[in-house]
């Protein structure tokens, strides 16, 4: 066995890891680095490796993973909306904490989300504007404009289903919880409370709700 080989391997792993990390960190700041070396030193410098092709114009794009939460005042209360984007898929849930609820899903590409419920009675069209998603939500005959702002975990969508009873919750950016429980007969009531650690007491038993993200199959 070679003596230096393993050290080379360790070094390669460290260099690759740190390198990718630094590229990530450099992307944190959207301000592009000035391409100084390219323009000014070309007269004498030896031919540098071909510069990477210029990045495409900054099209609005969703983060790899994000949750957006918005509140829509309606005649009978407030509808809370959470849009969870992961990759190129989004899933959204809207409910009023009493009886209205709808799950929507669909693609999220180029800063646009276009979602619909399974039975097509609800839909949502939204676009990225700054860091927020603005758009329109249709439920049945009604429609509302909304603005949903980015929210960090534990904010997001949670669901727990057992014996045909589905409880769905939104935790908003301030830690507020809104949820609706759907019974097997299709009736809807206010969902039991949900703690910020995603546990809920349903019929006297403590259960753990599943966090739902854009890519989830709910």
């Amino acid at each position: 066995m070679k003596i230096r080989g393993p050290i080379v391997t360790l070094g390669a792993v460290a260099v690759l890891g740190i390198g990718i990390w630094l590229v990530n960190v450099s992307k944190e700041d959207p301000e592009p680095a000035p391409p100084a070396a390219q323009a000014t030193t070309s007269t004498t410098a030896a031919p540098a490796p071909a510069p990477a092709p210029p990045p495409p114009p900054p099209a609005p794009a969703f983060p790899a993973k994000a949750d957006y939460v918005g509140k829509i005042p309606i005649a009978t209360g407030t509808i809370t909306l959470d849009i969870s984007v992961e990759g190129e898929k989004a899933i959204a849930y809207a409910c009023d904490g009493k009886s209205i609820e709808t799950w929507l899903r669909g693609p999220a590409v180029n800063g646009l989300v276009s979602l619909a419920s399974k039975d097509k009675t609800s839909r949502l069209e939204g676009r990225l504007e700054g860091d927020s998603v603005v758009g329109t939500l249709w439920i049945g005959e009604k429609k509302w404009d909304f603005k949903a702002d980015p929210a960090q975990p534990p904010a997001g969508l949670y669901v727990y289903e057992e014996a045909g009873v589905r409880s769905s919750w939104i935790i908003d950016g301030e830690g507020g919880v809104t949820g609706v429980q759907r019974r097997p007969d299709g009736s809807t009531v206010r969902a039991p409370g949900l703690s910020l650690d995603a546990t809920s007491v349903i019929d006297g038993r403590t259960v753990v709700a599943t966090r739902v993200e854009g890519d989830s199959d709910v």
Partner: protein
Amino acid sequence: MSDPTAQMPTQAVRTGSSGIAVLVTVILGAIVAVGLGVFGKIHEPQFFSISVAGFSSGTAVKSWLATLAVTLALFQLASAFAMYRLIPGGKAPSWIGTAHVWSGRLAVLASVPVAVHCLYALGFQSGDNRVLFHSLFGCFFYGAFVTKMLLLTRKGLRGWVIPVAGGLVFFGLVYVWLTSALWFFQTNGITF
């Protein structure tokens, strides 16, 4: 890479100190594992990391890179068995050692972008058991890997030390894969 003179000092001090040498490598590996975990916990998740073009999502890229690493790791296991003459058929082919080294390098390098994405975009999390164990095994894997690499630089170890270390690295990677890529493929289907 083969530098025979580099072996001399190590060989000179090997006797009697092999236990301490093993202890030192294990401690260094533990520092790496705990350090990664602490770092992943402290660093604020960015929910974003550079990705590879051509895949549907960052998670898909990670799952496939992890699967590549596990596939190479399976070859690692097989080639290690051959090197220790544990497979029927007697002598191992002469190239098996080199193949073992390079498949291992490729495996761990394939895992690095995945791990950076995990640490950078998500961090050490304990939301549910799958995520908790994935985080723990992920840190354990790199700690065990560091220990194994450092052990390889030591001479005069007891015969079982390297196989045990290699086995732990393999175990760590397989469990990392089971708690992530397999879960991804089960919930999303085999997607690219």
